[in-house]
C-alpha cells in the first residue's frame, strides 16, 4: 500500500484520511444501487406482471435512446458543462434522416446526413459555449428551442414513415436474447466507462470538471476536449434518433419531446455531481435501469400518470440534493 510508505512523522499535522471502505460506501452510486434493488422489489410487489425479464428488457428499449445520450451527457457534466439540447438534437437529426430518405436518397445517405447533422449541432453548441464563452446551460436551452423549431419547420406536423422493412424494428432484433438497443447501450456504457476510468482522456475530463483553469494551466487541451464532448453529444443524439426512428418506423418533430429532463434525471440519479468533477458511468448505467424499473413498475400497475410525474419530479430533486450533500460532506 502506498499509504504506509510515507514516513509516520510526515503525517502528524495532516488531517486523518477516511478509511477506504467508507469512501466507497459514501459514493452516490452505492445509493443508486440500493435504490435499484428496492425499486425492483417494490415493483414486483406492486404488480404480478412486472417480474419478467423479457418485459423489462422491452421496456428498457423505450428508454434506451435517452439512456445512451445520458451516458455521453455524464461525461459532459463531469467536465463541468451541461447539454440540455440532446432531445432536440435527436428530433432534428431524425427528421433530417426522414426527409432525406423521403426525398429518394438511399437510406445509407440518410443515415449519414443524420450523423453529420449530429456533429454539426454538437459543434454549434461547442462554438457558442467555448468560443463565445457563454454558459452551456442557457446556450443549450436556446439551442433546444432552435433545433426543435427547425425540426418543426422542415417536417411540419406530419410523420415521416414508410422506411424499408429491414430498417424498422431494431428493438425486436436480438443478439444473445438482448434487444439491440440494450446491447448498444451496454456497449457504449462499457466503452465510455473504460475511457473515463482508465485513460488519460477520462482523467483529464475529471480534472477539467474539477477546475478548468487549473487544467488549462497543466497543459490539458480543455477547449478541444470540451468541443469533442459536445460533438459526442450530437453524435450520440443522432444515433439515438436513428434507433427511435427504427423502433417507431416513423419520425416526427416532437420525437423525444421533453426527454432532456429524462436525460438529466438519469445522470443525476446516477450520482454525477451537477457542478462537475465527480460522477461515473456505472452510476448512469445503474440509474438508467432504476428509472426504467420505476417507470415500468408504475405503468404496469396502472398507477395514474399524475402520481408517476410526481414521483419522478421528487426523485430528481431528492437525487440532486442527496448527491450534493454526499459530496459536500466528503470534501472539507
Amino acid at each position, binding site marked *: 500500500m502506498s499509504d504506509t510508505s510515507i514516513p509516520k512523522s510526515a503525517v502528524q499535522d495532516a488531517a486523518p484520511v477516511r478509511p477506504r471502505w467508507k469512501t466507497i460506501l459514501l459514493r452516490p452510486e452505492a445509493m443508486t444501487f440500493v435504490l435499484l434493488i428496492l425499486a425492483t422489489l417494490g415493483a414486483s410487489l406492486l404488480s404480478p406482471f412486472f417480474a*419478467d425479464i423479457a418485459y423489462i428488457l422491452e421496456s428498457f428499449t423505450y428508454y434506451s435512446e435517452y439512456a445512451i445520450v445520458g451516458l455521453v451527457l455524464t461525461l459532459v457534466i463531469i467536465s463541468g458543462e451541461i447539454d440540455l439540447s440532446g432531445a432536440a438534437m435527436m428530433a432534428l437529426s431524425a427528421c433530417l434522416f426522414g426527409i432525406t430518405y423521403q426525398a429518394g436518397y438511399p437510406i445509407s445517405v440518410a443515415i449519414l446526413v443524420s450523423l453529420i447533422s449530429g456533429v454539426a449541432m454538437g459543434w454549434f453548441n461547442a462554438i457558442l459555449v467555448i468560443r463565445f464563452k457563454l454558459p452551456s446551460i442557457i446556450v443549450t436551452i436556446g439551442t433546444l428551442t432552435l433545433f426543435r423549431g427547425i425540426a418543426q419547420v422542415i417536417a411540419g*406536423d406530419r410523420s415521416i414513415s414508410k422506411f424499408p422493412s429491414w430498417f424498422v424494428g431494431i428493438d425486436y432484433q436480438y443478439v444473445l436474447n438482448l434487444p439491440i438497443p440494450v446491447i448498444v447501450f451496454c456497449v457504449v456504457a462499457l466503452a465510455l466507462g473504460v475511457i473515463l476510468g482508465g485513460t488519460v482522456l477520462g482523467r483529464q475530463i475529471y480534472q477539467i470538471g474539477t477546475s478548468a483553469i487549473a487544467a488549462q494551466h497543466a497543459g490539458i487541451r480543455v477547449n478541444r476536449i470540451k468541443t469533442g464532448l459536445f460533438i459526442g453529444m450530437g453524435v450520440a443524439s443522432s444515433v439515438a434518433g436513428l434507433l427511435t426512428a427504427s423502433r417507431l418506423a416513423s419520425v416526427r418533430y416532437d420525437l423525444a419531446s421533453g426527454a432532456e429532463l429524462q436525460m438529466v434525471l438519469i445522470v443525476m440519479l446516477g450520482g454525477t455531481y451537477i457542478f462537475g468533477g465527480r460522477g461515473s458511468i456505472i452510476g448512469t448505467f445503474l440509474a438508467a435501469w432504476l428509472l426504467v424499473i420505476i417507470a415500468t413498475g408504475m405503468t404496469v400497475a396502472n398507477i395514474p400518470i399524475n402520481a408517476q410525474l410526481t414521483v419522478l419530479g421528487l426523485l430528481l430533486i431528492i437525487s440532486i440534493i442527496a448527491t450534493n450533500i454526499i459530496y459536500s460532506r466528503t470534501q472539507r
Partner: protein
Amino acid sequence: ADPIKIVFVGKNTGNPYFDSLVQGFVDGCDKLGCEFEFVAPATAEATSQIPFITAQIQRGVDVIATSPNSPDALNQVLDRARAKGILVLSVNGDMTGNEEHRDAAILPTDFEKVGADQVELVGSLIDYEGEIAILSATTEAPDQNKWIVGMNEALANDPKYAKMKLVATVYGDDQPEKSTTEMEALLSTYPNLRGVISPTTVGIAASAQVVQSAGKADTVKVTGLGTPNQMRPFIKDGTVEAFQLWSPYNEGWLASHFAVGVKDGTIKNEVGATFEVPNLGTITINPLNSINTQAGLTTFDASNIDDFNF
C-alpha cells in the same frame, strides 16, 4: 370464464372530452360484465402511449382500445398486441393509411359528412352569404384535414353556397395562445369576415373568446366542433349561436359492445356485417373495418345545451 378485460389508452390525461367517452365504456362494461380500465400518458406526444400499450400487453388484457396520438408511431406495438390475440381498436379517430395495424376503428360519426355538415351550419348562421375562414388544429391533423377537404368540396359543388367564400384556413396547433393569436389575425386581416369554422375544441373556444373580447359576436359567427361544457357560457350569452359534435359517450358504449361481441364470437369483424347495439340500433361495419355511432352530427344551441354534460 374470466370476464373480458378492456383497457382504453387515451391521448393524454386532463382532456375533458374523454371523460364522457370513458363513461360510455364504464356503463357498457357494467351492463355486459366486462372489466374496464382507463390509462393515459401525460402528454399527447406521438410516442408517449407506447409504454402504456406494452404494459397492457404484459397485463394480458383482451382488448386494447386507443385514441392514437400518431397515425403510425404505434404500428409496431399494436402489431405485437394483435399477435398476442388482443383485439385492437382505434377509437374516436383512425390511423389513416395504417389501418392494417388495428382490428377496427370506432368513429363517432361518418367523417365524410362532417365537412358538409359544418358548412351547412355556418351557412345557416350567415344566410349563406359572405366570407368565411377555418381555424383548424395542426396542419397535418388527419381528421381535421379530411373534414376540411369535405368543407371545400361542399363549398365548391353545392350551388347553395355559391355566395360564400372561404378566404383563409389557418392553424392554431391546438394551443390556446397560438389559436387566439391566429384568430385575432383573422379578424384583423379580413374585416368583412362573416363566419369562422373551427373543427377542434381548443380552436372553437379560443375563437369564441376572441370575438367576445372584440365585441364582434354579432358580425362574425363562430361555429365548429366543441364540447357542451366548454361552449356553454358562449351559447348562454349569445356569442355562439350553435355548434356541433357527436356523442363521445356513445362511442364508448359502442366500443364496449363491439369488443365484447367480437371476443365472445357474437359479432363478426367483417366488412358489411351488421349487429345490434341497445340505444344505437343497427350498426354496419364499413370498409376498412370502421364503424360509426351515428350518421350526422348533433347540433347544440340554446334550446338543448342544458341537456348535455360532457
